[in-house]
C-alpha cells in the first residue's frame, strides 16, 4: 500500500514541478500577448475588456516605426548575407587544404566566438570616429558582419568537412575549376548549414540593441531594436497596449526564423559531439 502511494507521487511529482515552472515562465510572456489586443491594457495580466487590433494598427501605421523595421531588416539581412558569403569562402581552404597555419587560425576563430562583443564597443566607437564611420549604417553592418564571422566560419567549416571530397573531384575531372566546384557542388549540399548560420546571424543582429545604440546617432537611421527602446522610454509606462503590440511585431521574425531553423539543427546542442570539431 505504502509502496504504491510513493510510486504514484514519484510519477506525479515531476509533472507538477514542470507545470509550476512552465506557468511561471509563461506569465511574463502571456502578458505581452494579452495586452497587445486589449484596448485598455495595463501592466498586469487581466482579461481584456474587449478584443482590438488597434494597438497593432497604430504601431504599423506610424511611418517612423515602418522605417525602423525596414532599416532593421536591411541591416540584418545585409549582415546575414555578407557573413554567409565571406565565411563560406573562408571555410573552403580551411576545410579542403592542409594549411600550415590552419590550427592556430581555427583556434583564434573559436576563441573569438566566445569573446563578449560588449567589451569592445568603446574602442569600436572610437575606431568609427577615426574612420569617419560614426552614424553610418554601412559601418554598423560591417562591424556586425565581423562580429558574426568567427561563429559562421567555425560552423561552415565543420559543415563543409561533411561534404565528401569525391563529389568535387569528379567535377574537377570533368574540367570544373575550384570556384565552380564550390559553387555548383559544395554550396548546394551545404544549404542546411548555410540556412542555420544565416538565420542565427540574422536573429543575432535583429535583436541586437547595444551595437546600433552606440554606433548610430541620427534618429532617422535607427533600427527597430533601438526605436522600440525609445518608444518604451517615451510612452512605455502609459501605452502598455501599444508597447506590447510593438514587442510582438518585433519578436515575430525571430520566432518564425527559429522555427524554420529548428529542422536544420537537430544535433546542434550536443556539446559532446561538437568537440569532435
Amino acid at each position: 500500500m505504502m509502496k504504491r502511494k510513493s510510486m504514484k507521487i514519484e510519477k506525479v511529482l515531476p509533472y507538477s514541478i514542470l507545470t509550476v515552472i512552465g506557468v511561471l515562465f509563461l506569465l511574463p510572456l502571456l502578458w505581452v500577448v494579452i495586452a497587445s489586443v486589449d484596448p485598455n491594457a495595463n501592466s498586469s495580466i487581466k482579461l481584456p475588456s474587449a478584443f482590438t487590433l488597434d494597438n497593432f494598427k497604430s504601431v504599423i501605421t506610424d511611418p517612423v516605426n515602418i522605417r525602423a523595421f525596414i532599416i532593421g531588416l536591411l541591416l540584418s539581412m545585409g549582415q546575414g548575407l555578407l557573413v554567409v558569403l565571406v565565411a563560406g569562402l573562408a571555410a573552403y581552404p580551411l576545410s579542403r587544404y592542409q594549411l600550415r597555419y590552419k590550427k592556430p587560425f581555427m583556434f583564434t576563430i573559436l576563441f573569438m566566438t566566445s569573446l563578449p562583443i560588449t567589451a569592445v564597443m568603446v574602442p569600436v566607437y572610437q575606431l568609427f570616429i577615426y574612420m569617419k564611420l560614426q552614424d553610418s549604417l554601412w559601418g554598423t553592418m560591417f562591424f556586425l558582419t565581423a562580429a558574426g564571422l568567427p561563429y559562421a566560419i567555425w560552423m561552415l567549416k565543420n559543415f563543409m568537412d561533411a561534404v565528401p571530397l569525391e563529389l568535387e573531384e569528379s567535377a574537377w575531372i570533368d574540367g570544373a575549376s575550384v570556384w565552380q566546384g564550390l559553387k555548383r557542388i559544395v554550396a548546394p549540399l551545404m544549404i542546411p548549414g548555410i540556412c542555420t548560420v544565416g538565420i542565427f546571424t540574422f536573429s543575432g543582429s535583429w535583436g541586437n540593441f547595444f551595437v546600433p545604440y552606440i554606433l548610430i546617432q541620427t534618429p532617422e537611421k535607427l533600427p527597430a531594436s533601438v526605436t522600440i527602446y525609445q518608444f518604451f522610454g517615451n510612452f512605455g509606462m502609459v501605452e502598455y497596449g501599444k508597447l506590447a503590440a510593438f514587442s510582438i511585431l518585433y519578436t515575430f521574425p525571430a520566432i518564425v526564423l527559429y522555427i524554420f531553423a529548428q529542422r536544420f539543427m537537430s544535433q546542434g546542442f550536443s556539446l559532446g559531439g561538437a568537440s569532435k570539431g
Partner: protein
Amino acid sequence: MDANPVISPSTAVDGGSSSRKRQNRTVWASILFLLPAWLLLLVFFIGPILLTFYFAFTNLSLTGSEAQATQFIGFSNFMNMFQDPNFRISVMKTVIYLLFSAIIGQQVLGFILALLMKEKNPAFRRVIGIIIIAGWVTPEIVVAFCWVAFLNDSGTLNALLQQVGFKPIAWLFTFPMASVIIANIWHGTAFSMLVFQAALDDVPKSIEEAAVVDGASRFQVLYKIVLPMIKGSVVTNMILVTLQTLGVFTLIYAMTGGGPGTATQTLPIFMYNQAFVNYQLGYGTAISLILLLIGVIVSVLYLKSMKVKV
C-alpha cells in the same frame, strides 16, 4: 599562408609533374578565399581589441581639453579604477550576477528541466519546451519590457500576491539585483536545458538500468553515474553561459539602467556610464580591458574544456 594541398584540382587530373606550381596555386587560392574574412576581422574585430590595449592608457575623452589632445598617461586609468569605489562595487555586482544568474540559476534550472522532462509524455514535454524556448528566442530588449511590466507596482506579480493577501512591492526598487538576475535566468535557461537534454540522451539507458539492478538509489544513479558521464557538457555549458552573461548590457540597462544608485551596475553598465555618460572614453576603455581580460580567461578555459581537434 603556406599550403600543402591534400588534394587539389590539378593533382586529381594529371598528378605529378609540376607540383611546385600547383602548390603555389593552392596558396593563392587560400589567400583569395580567406582575404575578405581576414580584412573584416582585422579592421572590425582584432583592430578594436588592440585599440583597447592602447586607449586604456590614454586620457581619451569626448569633451573638454582632453578631447583635443589625447595623451598617453600610463597606468593612471587603472590606478584611478582600483581606487574608485564604484569600480569595486561593479566587480562585486558582476560576480553576484554571474554566480546567481549564470552558474547557479541557468545551469541548475536548465539541468532540472532536462532531467524532469526525460521520458515524459511527449506532448507535455513539447509544451513545456516551447514555453521555455520562447523566453530564449525573445530579443533581450523585449525580455526587459516583459519583466518591467511583470514586476511593476501594479504588475502581474503584485496582482497575484494581492490575491493571497500580500501588499504590493516595488520589486525593481526593493530587489533590483534579484529582478535582473531572474529576468536573465528566464531568458537564458533554454540554452542550458537544450544542452543537458542532448547530454542526457547520450547516456546509455543500459548503464542506468544496470546500476538500479545492483541496488543503486535514484539519487546515486544521478550522482555517481549520470553526472560524471555528462561532466564535459556541464563544464562547457557553464563556461558558455558565463561568457554570455558577462556581456549582458541591454537587459539590465533597459530594466534598471544600473540602478537604483549602483545596485545593478555590473561592469558593462559601469563601462557604458564612464565612456558615454561621463564622456571618459579612456577610463571606459580601461574598464573594457578588464572585461575583455575576464572574457579571455574564461574563453581559454572554454578552449581547454572542448579539447578541440581542428
